[in-house]
């Protein structure tokens, strides 16, 4: 008769589950304050917005329950779909533009050299200005008579007359893109900078010793190791751009000829100009769903092989 190896003594099942339950309860207590805040300021308002979206809810008068009437109306709302198309187009362009500026800036300010701190501060400075204030500033800069760009170009003899940059779609659109890049590139620069600084210098050194060119080091080492940082910056940039409103409202007022109305502008217009609160809520729910899908797709695409 051979002795079978004995497993170490384990607490009885009932005791184990009781301890686990207590542990879970303590954990729950720790997250409870945060959970309450999320519940109060996100889940409940979201639920209310959804409830509102099931009603014909005018600002004046009594709400009427209409099931999914607002959602079916939304499918035939040409302006909403055109606003959404414009928002996606803007998001693609502005995200590429921001990264094209923020990445070189991050690489530039990464290395310690004279005046690096000054550069970092200077590039980051526009970020601390609110979008509303920045838009007001640029609305003035772009003014055809009393602004800066148009009169300056005219006085310098670059244009035969003062050109109203906001009277044409292309000039309006690109003016706003430049403004947004000026305003947000510094923020993305800081995020990317933290990623860059997280890459071990030893890895870079080893690659250099092996004869890798700067471009090869950037492509094979810097970019792959920054995957997570880029994902974060990209998700923030895309989500922010999909929700763009202030700059198009303040600078262009959706013009010229309603060509720069973003999805949020349309929601604002339906909710607070036309006072169709139920329909505005339905539009918001659809935009939220679209944003969730876009963010999930981005996370999947940017997930590193070993997991995020």
């Amino acid at each position, binding site marked *: 008769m051979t002795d079978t190896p004995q497993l170490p003594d384990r607490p009885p099942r009932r005791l184990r589950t009781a301890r686990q339950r207590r542990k879970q309860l303590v954990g729950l207590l720790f997250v409870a304050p945060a959970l309450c805040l999320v519940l109060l300021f996100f889940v409940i308002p979201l639920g209310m917005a959804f409830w509102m979206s099931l009603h014909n809810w*005018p*600002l*004046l*008068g009594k709400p009427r329950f209409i099931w999914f009437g607002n959602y079916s109306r939304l499918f035939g709302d040409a*302006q909403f779909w055109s606003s959404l198309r414009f928002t996606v187009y803007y998001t693609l362009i502005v995200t590429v533009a921001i990264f094209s500026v923020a990445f070189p800036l991050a690489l530039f300010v990464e290395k310690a050299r004279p005046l690096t701190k000054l550069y970092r501060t200077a590039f980051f400075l526009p970020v601390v200005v609110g979008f509303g204030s920045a838009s007001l500033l640029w609305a003035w800069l772009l*003014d*055809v*008579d009393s602004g800066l760009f148009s009169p300056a170009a005219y006085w310098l003899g670059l244009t035969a*007359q*003062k*050109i*109203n940059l*906001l*009277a044409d779609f292309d000039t309006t659109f690109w003016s706003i893109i430049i403004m947004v890049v000026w305003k947000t590139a510094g923020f993305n620069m800081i995020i990317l900078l933290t990623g860059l600084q997280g890459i071990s210098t030893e890895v870079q050194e080893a690659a250099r010793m092996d004869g890798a060119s700067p471009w090869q080091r950037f492509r094979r080492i810097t970019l792959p190791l920054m995957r997570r940082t880029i994902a974060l910056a990209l998700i923030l940039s895309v989500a922010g751009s999909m929700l763009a409103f202030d700059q198009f409202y303040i600078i*262009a*007022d*959706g*013009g*010229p*000829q*309603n060509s720069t*109305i973003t999805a949020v*502008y*349309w929601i604002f*217009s339906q909710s*607070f*100009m*036309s*006072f169709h609160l139920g329909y505005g809520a339905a539009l918001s729910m659809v935009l939220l769903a679209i944003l969730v899908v876009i963010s999930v797709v981005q996370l999947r695409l940017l997930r590193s092989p070993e997991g995020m």
Partner: protein
Amino acid sequence: MRIFRIAALAAAALGVLSGSALAQQKLTMWSRSSSEAFMPGLIKAFNETHKTQIELQIVPSSEMVQKYATAAAGGSAPDFVSLDLVYAPAFAKSGTLEDLTDLAKSLPYFEHLSKAHIGTGTYDGRIYALPMSADASVLLWNKKLFKQAGLDPDKGPTNWAEIEADAAKVNALGGDIRGFYFAGACGGCNAFTFMPLIWASGGDILVDGGKRAAIDTPQMHDAINFYRTLVAKGYVPESAKTDSGKNFFGGFATDKVGLSPIGAFAIGNLVKNYPQVEFGVTFIPGKDGGRASFAGGDNFVVTAGRDNLAAAKEFLEFVYSIEGQTLLAKGGSLPTRSDIAAEAIKGLDERYQIATEAMKMGRTPSSPVYNDVFNSSTGPWKQMLNEVFFGTDVDGSVAKAQASMQSILDAAAD
């Protein structure tokens, strides 16, 4: 017996208390910020001479509708509101307003109160709003530039051909000077200044009691062509294309614009703040003559269910008295009672007389969905105007606006 005496004394004391409470009734009133020049003075004068006291709160113009609607829904609305007259039908339809029909009809001068105000204040045959303050659209011309251009500085144009000819001559002065100004991306401003061109030419905007849009008409196309010509010939500054109303007044105040349709509010503002601008005031004409004006301003409304109609009547009687009308006129509002209007503006700038005459013929499209159709920056009116003034597809834009407006009106009628 003693107990009875004490009870009688207590009842008497209560009566005195409640009586004094009535006499000292304190009511709240909201008015939008654009009335800041005259409403505080008017309320102060009323409070000084009446036992009923009104506490006035000025609300930013852009927030008034949301604020009042939200407060009414939450039961915290003020007793009285001075509300942009175009919103009166929407509030009346929602049941927010007290029926003022009997009060209105009891006023001996009811027939002389601004018809446009009463028109927008009437819903389903009942009167829910009465005139508070008024503004009428007129045409301003710059006398100094007219003189420099060789035109008669004392004679304003009386039809579209004359406007175009005058604008051409002023424009020919060169430099930054332009012949004509209008805020090309502002729905509300152009309701105020562009609609009269159509009315004075025999056309209309809303017909069948505000149930049908009449946008796609020969008069509308003529008026559009008139503005397009002014733009195409370079008489309109480049900035007008994107002016969403911020420069509605400022355009003419630059002293570099020959003609501009604008509100009577500009008269007092120019005299006070831009004394260097020498200007004349005339009526907005039709294609071949005629005249018309958009009646703007505020209506007085009472929040429903407050049981304060006696105080409302007391206040309105003061507003419509010669003292009230004079105070309004001095502060920059036109009188709202036509039979004493001439007396109320006596001693004021004589150009107010033209504006007062314009007010008498003033019109305002009335609809519970006025905001959706005309004021909203993404609404069909504003979208159409910007497209037809500066775009290429006039017929398509007008047809689209006609259909879009009609669908909004139809939806509101359901």
